[in-house]
């Protein structure tokens, strides 16, 4: 049941990305290009998404547990540390260079544009290196 419901939720997210323009790197980069070809559209994406989520999380989400799971799965980290700041900075630099963020790219994989698949391949490589790299280095150092 849970999986049956998650599929259309994914489609709704994807459609939101496509309609809003987040799936088009030219629009994303233009939002950040205030000194050049500025397109303020993305502030409306953020505004629309936050307005619905801020209210929806408080009004619609049940208190005890989600409808189709035994408990909530929420991030538990609280600390603002160097890892968070450096990671967010690196993400911002990459986002500005490529124009795609993960949420923007995944839905438009379905448009079969080669550039989206190339970006996603590089994104996956980055995720795997960051997740598995430190462990591999530590194992080599201790071997």
């Amino acid at each position, binding site marked *: 049941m849970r999986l049956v419901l998650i599929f259309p939720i994914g489609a709704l997210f994807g459609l939101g990305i496509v309609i809003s323009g987040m799936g088009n790197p030219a629009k994303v980069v233009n939002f950040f290009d205030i000194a050049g070809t500025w397109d303020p559209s993305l502030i409306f994406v953020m505004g629309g998404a*936050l307005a619905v989520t801020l209210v929806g999380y408080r009004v619609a989400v049940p208190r005890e547990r989600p409808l189709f799971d035994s408990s909530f799965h929420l991030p538990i980290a609280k600390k603002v540390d160097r890892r968070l700041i450096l990671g967010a900075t690196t993400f911002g630099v990459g986002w*500005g260079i490529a124009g795609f963020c993960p949420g923007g790219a995944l839905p438009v994989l379905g448009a079969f544009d080669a550039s989206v698949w*190339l970006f996603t391949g590089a994104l996956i490589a980055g995720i795997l290196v960051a997740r598995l790299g430190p462990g591999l280095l530590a194992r080599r150092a201790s071997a």
Partner: protein
Amino acid sequence: METDFTPWASLAGGAMIGLAAVLLMVVAGRVMGATGILAGALLPTSRDDGAWRWVMIAGMVTAPALYLLATGGWPEITVPVSTPMLLVGGFLVGIGVTFGGGCTSGHGVCGIARFSVRSIVATGVFMVACFATVYVVRHVVGV
């Protein structure tokens, strides 16, 4: 390259993204972060944990086809940068979202809506880094 200012489409798309985030929390008790969903699909902690993430991604990638059915055209995807820059950007995004613990959808929408201090800080940091990067790339280096 100029893009059209699309406040209404962006607002509507943003609201759909927000609605998807609320529904995923109501149904499955999960934060709708594209980064976490993708990373967890690649390196799942259990079979059940991987399953819902792949279903979510499968739902997402149907969006361009749904858009085609509704409007008669594929969504516009214009990549304003060279392929090497797209790959470098994608790799940096992958590294950054892993250490930063999230991206635009996870921190910027769900995290802010949960009043997470980490998410509010991360969103501010990656937006500033992105503005700075686009300025340098377009107006200092002049790519």
